C-alpha cells in the first residue's frame, strides 16, 4: 500500500544550463519503501535530475517536496534537507584523507554533532551493513572500487536518510566488482529503504525495481513496473533503448 503523501515529490521541474534545456516539467512521486530505477541514454539529464532533487543544483522552476514539505522554498535550510537525502555518486567521491570509518563518521560528528564514541559505534554498524567492518581503518586508496562504493553507501546511510539517490553506482566499476555493490543495494531494497537508482544494470532493474522510469532527452518517456517495461513497452523509443542496452550489457546479467 502506498502511503500518502509521497516521501519525495517533484512537481514540474525545469532545469536549463544557459540555452540548454536539460529537462522540462518533470514530475515524479517516490513513495516510502519504493525502489525506482531510472534508465535512459547518457546526456538525458538523469544525473542533473538527481542533483536537483537533493538541492545540489538549483532548479529553474518547479517544486520539490520531502515528506510533504516544500524543500524548494527559499526559507528552507538546504544543508538540513541534504542530510535527509542520501546520495551515492558514480565515482564514489570518498574523502581521500579519511579512513573508511572516518568517511562514515564525519557526517555524524560534524553535521549531526554526535559524540565521538556514539558516532564511531554507529559508523561501524553501517560498515558492517555493507560488509566492510574489517576495512574500517583502510584509506580509500587502499580499497577496491567496489569497496569504496560500499563505503560511500555506508556514509550516506549513516545519516539515516529518508531517501537514497544512486547515480550510476556501478558504472565506474570493473565487471567483477559490480555484484558486491548491487548486492548491498538489493539488500537495502529488501529492508524497504526508499531508493531512486539511475543505472544501466537491467538485471537489477528487472529484479529489484518496483517501478522503472525511462527518460530520454529530458522527458519521462514511459514508466511502469519492470514487467510493463520489459515485456510490453508502449513506446517505440523504450523498445529501441532496451534492445540496445541489453546488447551492450546483456553479457553481464545473471540468468
Amino acid at each position, binding site marked *: 500500500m502506498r502511503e500518502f503523501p509521497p516521501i519525495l515529490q517533484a512537481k514540474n521541474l525545469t532545469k536549463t544550463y544557459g540555452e540548454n534545456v536539460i529537462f522540462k516539467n518533470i514530475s515524479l512521486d517516490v513513495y516510502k519503501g519504493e525502489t525506482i530505477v531510472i534508465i535512459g541514454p547518457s546526456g538525458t539529464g538523469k544525473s542533473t535530475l538527481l542533483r536537483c532533487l537533493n538541492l545540489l543544483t538549483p532548479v529553474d522552476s518547479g517544486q520539490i517536496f520531502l515528506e510533504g514539505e516544500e524543500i524548494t522554498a527559499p526559507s528552507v535550510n538546504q544543508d538540513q534537507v*541534504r542530510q535527509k537525502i542520501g546520495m551515492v555518486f558514480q565515482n564514489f567521491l570518498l574523502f581521500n584523507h579519511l579512513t573508511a570509518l572516518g568517511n562514515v563518521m564525519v557526517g555524524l560528528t560534524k*553535521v549531526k554533532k554526535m559524540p565521538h564514541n556514539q558516532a564511531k559505534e554507529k559508523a561501524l554498524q553501517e560498515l558492517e551493513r555493507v560488509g566492510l567492518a574489517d576495512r574500517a581503518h*583502510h*584509506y580509500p586508496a587502499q580499497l577496491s572500487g567496489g569497496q569504496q562504493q560500499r563505503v560511500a553507501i555506508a556514509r550516506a546511510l549513516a545519516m539515516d536518510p529518508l531517501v537514497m539517490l544512486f547515480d550510476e553506482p556501478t558504472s565506474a566499476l570493473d565487471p567483477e566488482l559490480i555484484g558486491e555493490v548491487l548486492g548491498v543495494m538489493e539488500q537495502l531494497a529488501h529492508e524497504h529503504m526508499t531508493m531512486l537508482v539511475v543505472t544501466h544494470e537491467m538485471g537489477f532493474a528487472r529484479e529489484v525495481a518496483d517501478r522503472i522510469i525511462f527518460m530520454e532527452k529530458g522527458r519521462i518517456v514511459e514508466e511502469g513496473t519492470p514487467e510493463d517495461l520489459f515485456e510490453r513497452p508502449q513506446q517505440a523509443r523504450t523498445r529501441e533503448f532496451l534492445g540496445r542496452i541489453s546488447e551492450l550489457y546483456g553479457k553481464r546479467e545473471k540468468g
Partner: protein
Amino acid sequence: MISFLEFFVRYFPDLLSGIGMTLLLTAEGILAGLVLGLAATLARTYGGKFWRSLAIAYIELFRGTPLLVQLFLLYYGLPGLGIALSREWSAFLALGLNSGAYQAEYLRGSILAVGEEQMLAARAIGMSKWQAIFYIILPQALRLAIPAWANEPVSLLKASSVVFLIAVPELMTRAKMIASRTYDPIRSYLAAAVLYLILVYLVDAAMKWLEQHTRLPGLSQARQK
C-alpha cells in the same frame, strides 16, 4: 693570518645570536604568511566578488614587487602616514606579507587539484560550504600543497637577509658588523654563507620529514605505480 676555522670559532657567539634572529624572522614570516595566504586563497576561491578582488590585488601586489621595496615602504614609508614601526616589526610584516602572497599561490593550486567533486560529496551529506572547506577540502589541499610549499621556508630564510638593510640584527647584519670590525670581509661573509647553508639544509630536512609524515596511506604507492 688566522685560519678560517679559528675565525669562525672566535666570532661564532656573535653569529649565533644572528642565527636566532634569522630563524625567528623566518618562522614568524612563514606562520604569518600561512595565515594570510590561507585567508587570501579562501577569499579568492570561495569569496564573493569583493573578497575575490581584494585577495587578487594583495597577491599580485606582493608577488609583483621586490621584497626590498616592500620592506622600505613599511619602514621608511609608513612613518610618513603617522605609523612608525620598529625595525623588527617592519621586517616581520614585510616577510609575512610577501610570503603570504606566494603561499596563497601554492594553496590555490592544491585546492583546485582537490576538485569540485569533493565539495559536492561533502554538501551531499549535509555539510555547509564552510564545513566542507574546513573538514574536507583543506585537509586534503594542505597535504597536496606540501611538496611545492616546502620550498617556501628555505626561500624565505634566504630572502630574510635583505632586512640587514634596515639593520635588524640577524645573521647578515652580524656578518657585516664583524666584517667592518675585523677588516676581513671574505672570512666574515664566508662564515655567514656556511651558516646559511647549514640552516637551509636543516629546514630542508624538516620539510622532508613533514612530507613523509603527512602522506596518506595508499595514495603514494598508487602514484608510484
